[in-house]
């Protein structure tokens, strides 16, 4: 049956228009800070602002911390569920879906109520405590993606055989996790890490309500006070998101495979 390709191409063209026009418009707008001429001045203004450098590096640090904590929590859980406690799988999977059900604004509202200065664990009392709380909130936010990535990674390697082999050679569980499992799922973990960073670096709601100087809060501030710099920030954010997602695609090519014998 001969099928016309006219309609698919037309739909593709229209869709591309919707998705590319805002990007083109934003880019064009970001270059128009000077009258009648294109310039990179908006970008220069952004990059040279101390607040940009401070908030961006702050968000990166919190993002990395969230990745580390996330990996430490998720990898052992996914490993044990896969190998020894499969009956816990429904519970764990439900929990990893919770952050998709609970909107971030509810999560942070709950934190503020529960960890405020008059509670048992007054995390919001100190700067460092609030930073910890923000990090943990980001761990929660990225949990569905991190767990999915790690679980997919574990599926592609033969966890059972690797564990037994390591056991015979005298390795304990910590050694197995750290020196056998983790190196074998590096690619999956890194995918989860980049996705976490893509989600977390521009995050606004939680950081703003916890009063932390994060990149998202800074962007909102610039948006309220400037005209062209926000467009430059949008382009920069898009490039960052694209880079993070591009890394995931790139990494996927290096994934090791030692799938279980069937």
């Amino acid at each position: 049956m001969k099928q016309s390709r006219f309609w698919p191409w037309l739909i593709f063209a229209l869709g591309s228009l919707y998705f590319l026009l805002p990007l083109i418009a934003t880019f064009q707008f970001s270059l128009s800070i000077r009258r009648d001429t294109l310039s990179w001045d908006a970008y220069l203004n952004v990059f040279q602002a101390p607040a940009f450098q401070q908030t961006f590096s702050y968000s990166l640090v919190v993002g990395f911390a969230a990745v580390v904590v996330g990996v430490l929590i998720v990898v052992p859980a996914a490993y044990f569920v896969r190998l020894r406690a499969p009956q816990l799988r429904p519970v764990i999977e439900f929990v990893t879906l919770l952050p998709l059900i609970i909107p971030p604004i509810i999560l942070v509202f709950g934190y503020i109520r529960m960890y405020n200065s008059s509670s048992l664990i007054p995390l919001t009392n100190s700067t460092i405590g609030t930073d910890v709380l923000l990090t943990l909130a980001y761990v929660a936010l990225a949990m569905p993606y991190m767990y999915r990535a790690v679980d997919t990674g574990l599926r592609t390697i033969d966890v059972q055989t690797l564990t037994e082999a390591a056991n015979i050679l005298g390795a304990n569980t910590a050694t197995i996790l750290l020196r056998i499992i983790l190196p074998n799922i590096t690619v999956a973990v890194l995918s989860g890490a980049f996705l976490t960073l893509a989600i977390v670096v521009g995050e606004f709601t939680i950081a703003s309500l916890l009063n932390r100087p994060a990149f998202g809060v800074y962007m909102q501030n610039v948006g309220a006070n400037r005209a062209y710099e926000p467009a430059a920030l949008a382009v920069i954010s898009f490039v960052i998101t694209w880079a993070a997602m591009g890394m995931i695609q790139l990494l996927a090519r290096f994934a090791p495979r030692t799938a279980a014998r069937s």
Partner: protein
Amino acid sequence: MRWGDYIGVAPFLVFAILFLIVPTAFLMASAFVDREGGFTLDNIANLNTPQILSSFWISIRVSVASAAIGALVGLIFALAVIRGRLPQAVRSTVLTFSGVASQFAGIPLAFAFIATLGRLGLITWLFKTYLDLDIYRAGFNLLSFWGLTITYCYFQIPLMILIIAPAIDGLKKEWSEAAATLGATPVQFWRYVGLPVLWPNLLGTLSLLFANAFGAIATAYALTGSSLNIVPILLYAQIRGDVLNDPGLGAALALGMVVIAALANVVYLVIRTRAERWLK
């Protein structure tokens, strides 16, 4: 089953209890507590004000509209790209781009749409210059229901494409060939085979998209400040202490949001388990 087996899962469970479940449950519970610490339904009853009701109504409408449009457009787009025999490169580009665009939400998305459809935006300018049409005078406003819906579609459509693509791949080529052999037209194939198989997935994704839009705040906040009265923005202002100034009411507002978001997701989870039968 040894206790040692639980140790690896313990950090995860402790984290989930302390930083997901208990804070949310605590917040939900405080919706039923009055200032003196006793049980009350007053907070819930206090939701019944014109401002709060209309904020829920606008939120639900924006979420439904952006979810429905996102799902429909995303489905058509995914079908065209995957089953329209477009080159493989187009398909992988679209999927990669969808991955990026579905995460491109929040503050920067608002900026992008201000530069596109704002009063000084490129499209606004193009219409004015070449078609002599001032879309703002014609009644369009980016800071309105439709403005917000169009903006939300920028992450809803890609999300739909990402979720529905595996389901469309699951429509086996043999099915359409078998249908064609039996004399079915393409319309009949989609009416009796294609859509019924995709249907649970579609409905499920719809509820996921709904919840996605319903909880979103950053885009709307950067777009409209606090001028657009949607639930998350009202709650944001409430947490900030700007308005209402009633802790119980804030919790009740949060409870309302969670109930609506959870309902949508329960629909999704139930339907997804039914849908997976066909995707093996």
